[in-house]
């Protein structure tokens, strides 16, 4: 009878395994759940394993049981009425209806209602004693929008866990956790005593203590950040700064270097744009080793001539002309030299159907700039190339 919940969860991409589902059913059989609020808490504890999925759980639970879910255009109009409404005092009225009935009538009444309504006892609105709407006094009812007096049936509709989703916003710490997975430990630190080897050696030695040493583990990954700066990247400046801060603060990388470019690198990479300190890409490539990992950050969208042509724009509003390679050829050249490169794109994936984005996506594996995206990117970087 809970199949619908399972279905809704999976459609919210909460991957509920058979094991947990059986445990969930077992718990219900054991009588751990006595009401809908209990089911909400119990189900979440068993079926969801991260606060980042609590929001998805709320949505699925909502879709299955409550019915606070409305068609988006309808709920938006309702919310705007409710948002600037004044509260009115009303008497508490007990509406003794079962929930399905209430829900059915709610939709019916919405259909009848043609305009905004505050107070009174019939229409959907604010205050008043109708069981539908916000801030009202009916003890059972459907609340539209957040806040007001809490009704257990509608907790899921609040979506208070929306901020915890990992496919949305993120902070420096999240970046750090993701980047830390990039460390690769090898034995090249200072010498320390190796107990296991010592025991083996001692045993082989007929019981006379024979000390063995080995080197401590150290990380040898060099991290190189290449940041698209200025222009269409300005709105993402904060996000990029966070990534930059995180990369600087993650301990254990052999080195962290940052280079800047505008839209697409073209012969040179800049230490910083302010005083135009730059180095030629050929020089930089000469220093790359197999332990270098490149992370590009950029929206990859620009005028096609910048990527494919011989000219390109610089952040000072003029055009540089460099003979030889076009932007796309430079990118390919870097990729050949450093196969361990990924591209992080701060634009949402739905904007990626742009000719220059797909061209760059064909050169570097491209991932969205959020926690899940970085995690995937790090996995791609760790894979042997």
């Amino acid at each position, binding site marked *: 009878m809970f199949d619908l919940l399972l279905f809704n969860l999976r459609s919210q991409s909460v991957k509920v*395994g058979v*094991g*947990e589902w059986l*445990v969930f059913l*077992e*718990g219900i059989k*054991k*009588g*751990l759940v006595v009401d809908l*609020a*209990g089911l909400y*808490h*119990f189900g*979440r*504890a*068993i079926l*969801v*394993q*991260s*606060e980042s999925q*609590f929001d998805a759980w709320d949505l699925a639970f909502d879709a299955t049981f409550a019915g606070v879910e409305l068609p988006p255009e309808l709920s938006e109009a309702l919310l705007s009425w409710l948002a600037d409404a004044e509260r009115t005092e009303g008497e508490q009225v007990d509406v003794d209806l079962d929930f399905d009935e209430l829900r059915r009538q709610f939709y019916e009444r919405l259909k009848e209602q043609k305009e905004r309504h505050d107070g009174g006892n019939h229409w959907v609105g604010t205050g008043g004693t109708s069981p539908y709407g916000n801030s009202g006094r009916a003890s059972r009812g459907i609340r539209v929008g957040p806040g007001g007096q809490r009704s257990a049936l509608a907790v899921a509709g609040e979506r208070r866990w929306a901020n*915890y989703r990992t496919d949305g916003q993120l902070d420096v710490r999240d970046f750090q*956790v993701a980047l*830390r997975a990039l460390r690769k430990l090898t034995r090249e630190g200072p010498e320390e005593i190796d*107990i296991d080897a010592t*025991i083996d050696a*001692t*045993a082989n030695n007929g*019981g006379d203590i024979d000390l063995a040493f080995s080197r401590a583990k150290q990380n040898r990954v060099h991290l190189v950040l290449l940041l698209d700066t200025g222009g269409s990247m300005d709105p993402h400046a904060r996000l990029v700064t966070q990534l930059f801060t995180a990369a600087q603060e993650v301990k254990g990388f052999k080195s962290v270097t940052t280079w800047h470019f505008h839209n697409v690198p073209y012969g040179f990479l800049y230490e910083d744009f302010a005083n135009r300190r730059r180095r030629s890409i050929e020089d930089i490539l000469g220093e790359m080793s197999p332990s270098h990992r490149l992370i590009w950050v950029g929206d990859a969208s620009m005028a096609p001539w910048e990527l494919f042509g011989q000219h390109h724009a610089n952040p000072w509003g003029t055009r540089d002309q460099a003979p030889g390679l076009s932007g796309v050829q430079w990118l390919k050249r870097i990729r050949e030299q450093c196969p361990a490169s990924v591209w992080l794109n701060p634009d949402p994936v739905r904007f990626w159907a742009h000719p220059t984005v797909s061209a760059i996506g064909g050169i570097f594996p491209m991932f969205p700039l959020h926690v899940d995206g970085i*995690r995937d990117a790090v996995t791609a970087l760790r894979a042997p190339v």
Partner: protein
Amino acid sequence: MTSFDRFLGADKYIADDALLASVNAAIALERPLLVRGEPGTGKTMLARAIAETLGKRLVGWHVKSTTSATEGLYSYDVVQRLNDSRFPEDAGRDVSDIRAYIKMGVLGQAFQADEQVVLLIDEIDKADIEFPNDLLRELDEMAFSIPELDETITARHRPITIITSNAEKELPTAFLRRCVFHYIEFPDRERIQKIVDAHLPDLNKELVEAAILRFYGLRKVDALKKKPSTSELLDWLVVLSRAGVDPEDIASRMPFIGTLIKREKDLEILAQRAKHGFGVS
């Protein structure tokens, strides 16, 4: 309804419905409870509160970055035995008896206890990334084997297991699937008032109110790297009342701010804001 020990909250531990539901689900289903949340939301305290209210012994395993899974099960002191075999006269125990050199770890002790215990695995995320995976079978079947003795230790009474994590590292999915999960939110003003009342019942009401107001003001400053937590608020309140600070003073300046804000950078940020007249409340 099957009966089992129910946790209904404790005098000093204010739990909400969601937490109670999770704890009782974990007890009834005999699964470990994984508790996550910001530092200072009382994750470790929870295990203590459960043990206290259910009248069970608490066995704590405080995980460090160097902790390995086998440490919690048992350790076999090979080096000692090797040494004893060279100098049997000083050994004081029978070198041929392996058992004399096997010492039970925290999990081993919990499994062998005569009655059900509350097992706390604290800050599991501190250890190596593979650590939780190494404990899968142990937590699933509540059993482990000792190859040296060719024996399997099975829990006489499955312990009530509470695992805490600061969410620093991602825990492996296989591990998560075996746990009941709960995320402790930072308490809202109403609940923090209850927590303060439970811990420090005799404080001046005005003082507490002013301090809580200030405390939430501080937590709203996004620039702070380490936001003050519940335990720090409690410390601050104790200091304030011992020093006899006037509630009015809390609003105008911030006495003993060092109890709340521990990072020098954060203090600088606050000083800067005060200078520019942003205030913090």
